[in-house]
């Protein structure tokens, strides 16, 4: 729900209520080509749009090419072609068998998606400095910034944008420091060396770095940022705006070096090596599903290892969806996931589409049990709906339970050991006149267990 607000407020300055919502929902942000309109290079909005699927409006995922020259996400177009046999963009005839995978576009897209955040960050910077100059006459640190700023010419779009933002300047904006960690920096900010976010210096030093070090999954992000820092001369010039940040970055760069170098050519290498990879080229057969009997269908589904409950209609729908997932994954994607992941996606789809049927709900739980995830909670199941189930979140979410379990196991192990020792001890010191120790100890162990 509150995703609705995540980005809207970056164009229309809304109430601070929305801004707090923005920070609260890190989970899934919605991007928009218009994000670039307020940067130094508004033309990037064009590129951003080009890399999107015209069906889902998100970045192309496992893109495929039609004979008429249009690209869509493999899943999106396959889903549509189950209904209609024409290209959504030009309405010319099109069937699933005419689709062609295109690894290059796939890699361009995923490479761009990784870079996007840091691009935005870098390109919006001068505009932030502008605001800082207008209101906060800072200490020595920022005299440099002011000079730098004067040299950079204002592009017309920026002037408009900053005028709009200016109403946020002043004391209130200083008070809202945390909300603006991504793009709006009002306080003395510096870049976190780990997650490369811009944060108020005080906060950064006090708590943020520690937090960052703890959460390992932010590392990936900083990769792309680092790359940009060093490889793009024009951009790294801008980083000098932030003397503090620079120091931090340099000190951390040694740590990140290995990851970074891998990251720079990752997509290129994967693209070049895609021919060498062994691919599972077994297309799921297009079955004449209606002519099959329910029993035959059941057999087919069971053979594939997917649930075979429900009526015939449900089974047909399930097979069709799985076929689509399978083909788009093993056929079209340069980076196919394994079957278990496909089954998870299938169950997430089914959960969404048959949420009303209790019997299906059971089958999903069963399916997931099969995948060794028996301790499902309702809240996490909901996440499946987005089809972007976050493994890290899952791990985090259950880390406390896991720790508890571990402690419990360790405790009981200890107890058992103690018990053993006591027993052996007792057998040795049986003659000693202290008969009470043994029974009480055993009792303790039992109650603890």
């Amino acid at each position, binding site marked *: *729900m509150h*995703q*609705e607000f*995540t*980005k*809207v407020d970056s*164009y*229309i300055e809304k109430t601070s209520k929305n801004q707090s919502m923005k920070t609260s929902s890190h989970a*899934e942000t*919605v991007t*928009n080509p*218009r994000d670039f309109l307020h940067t130094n290079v508004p033309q990037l909005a064009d590129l951003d749009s080009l890399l999107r699927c*015209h*069906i*889902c*409006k*998100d970045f192309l995922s496992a893109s495929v090419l039609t004979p008429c020259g249009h690209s869509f996400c493999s899943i*999106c177009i396959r*889903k*549509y072609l189950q*209904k209609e046999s*024409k290209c*959504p*963009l030009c*309405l010319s005839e099109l069937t699933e068998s005419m689709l062609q995978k295109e690894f290059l576009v796939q890699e361009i897209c995923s490479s761009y998606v990784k870079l996007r955040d840091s691009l935005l960050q870098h390109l919006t910077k001068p505009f932030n400095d502008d605001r800082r100059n207008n209101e906060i006459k800072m200490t020595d640190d920022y005299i440099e910034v002011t000079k730098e700023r004067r040299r950079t010419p204002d592009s017309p779009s920026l002037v408009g944008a900053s005028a709009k933002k200016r109403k946020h300047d002043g004391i209130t904006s200083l008070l809202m420091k945390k909300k603006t960690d991504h793009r709006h920096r009002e306080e003395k900010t510096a870049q976190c060396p780990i997650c490369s976010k811009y944060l108020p210096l005080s906060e950064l030093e006090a708590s943020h770095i520690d937090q960052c070090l703890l959460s390992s999954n932010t590392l990936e992000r900083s990769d792309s940022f680092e790359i940009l820092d060093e490889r793009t001369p024009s951009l790294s010039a801008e980083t000098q705006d932030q003397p503090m940040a620079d120091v931090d970055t340099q000190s951390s760069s040694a740590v990140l070096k290995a990851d970074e170098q891998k990251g720079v050519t990752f997509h290129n290498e994967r693209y070049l090596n895609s021919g060498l990879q062994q691919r599972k080229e077994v297309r799921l057969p297009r079955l004449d599903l209606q002519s099959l009997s329910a029993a035959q269908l059941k057999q087919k589904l069971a053979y594939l290892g997917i649930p075979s409950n429900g009526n015939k209609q449900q089974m047909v729908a399930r097979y069709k969806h799985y076929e689509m997932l399978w083909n788009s994954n093993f056929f079209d994607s340069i980076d196919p996931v394994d079957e278990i992941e496909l089954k998870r996606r299938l169950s997430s789809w089914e959960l969404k589409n048959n949420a009303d049927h209790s019997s299906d709900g059971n089958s999903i739980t069963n399916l997931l049990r099969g995948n060794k995830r028996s301790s499902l909670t309702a809240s996490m199941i909901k996440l499946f*709906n*987005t089809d972007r189930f976050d493994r890290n979140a899952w791990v985090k979410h259950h880390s406390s339970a896991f720790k508890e379990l571990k402690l419990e196991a360790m405790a009981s192990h200890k107890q058992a050991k103690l018990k053993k020792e006591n027993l052996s001890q007792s057998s040795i010191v049986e003659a000693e006149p202290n008969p009470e120790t043994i029974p009480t100890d055993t009792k303790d162990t039992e109650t603890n267990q």
Partner: protein
Amino acid sequence: MQSLQTQETERLVSDPVPGITAEPHDDNLRYFQVTIEGPQQSPYENGIFQLELFLPDDYPMEAPKVRFLTKIYHPNIDRLGRICLDVLKNNWSPALQIRTVLLSVQALLASPNPNDPLANDVAEEWIKHEDTAIAEAKQWTELYAKPTQSEPQPE
């Protein structure tokens, strides 16, 4: 889907089409309340028309459902507000969006097509006596689509 809908909503709000507003309903984000201004130099000029738009579960594989709530005298819009428009039916494509659909509806107001009618009586009148039909449409606009009565202007 979630993301798509969010994106579209966001764009509708942040980058509105002139003469068209669309706001998602608080309780149901698939349900939009839409207003369209009557195009200039059409019989619907100066009118503000209320519509409802609903995104079916299968959207964008399926076209959104659009219906006029304000009464309108138009050969392609019937008494119940249903619209005869190709992009809402056979010519729907998932590459289209809410905004393009609404633009098409606006265009339909600008150029009624009595040769592919939905409201037969209106279409007949339109073909036989275009002048009186247009006068009628103007009158209806005056009667039902007056901005003051039908809508408290946003902001």
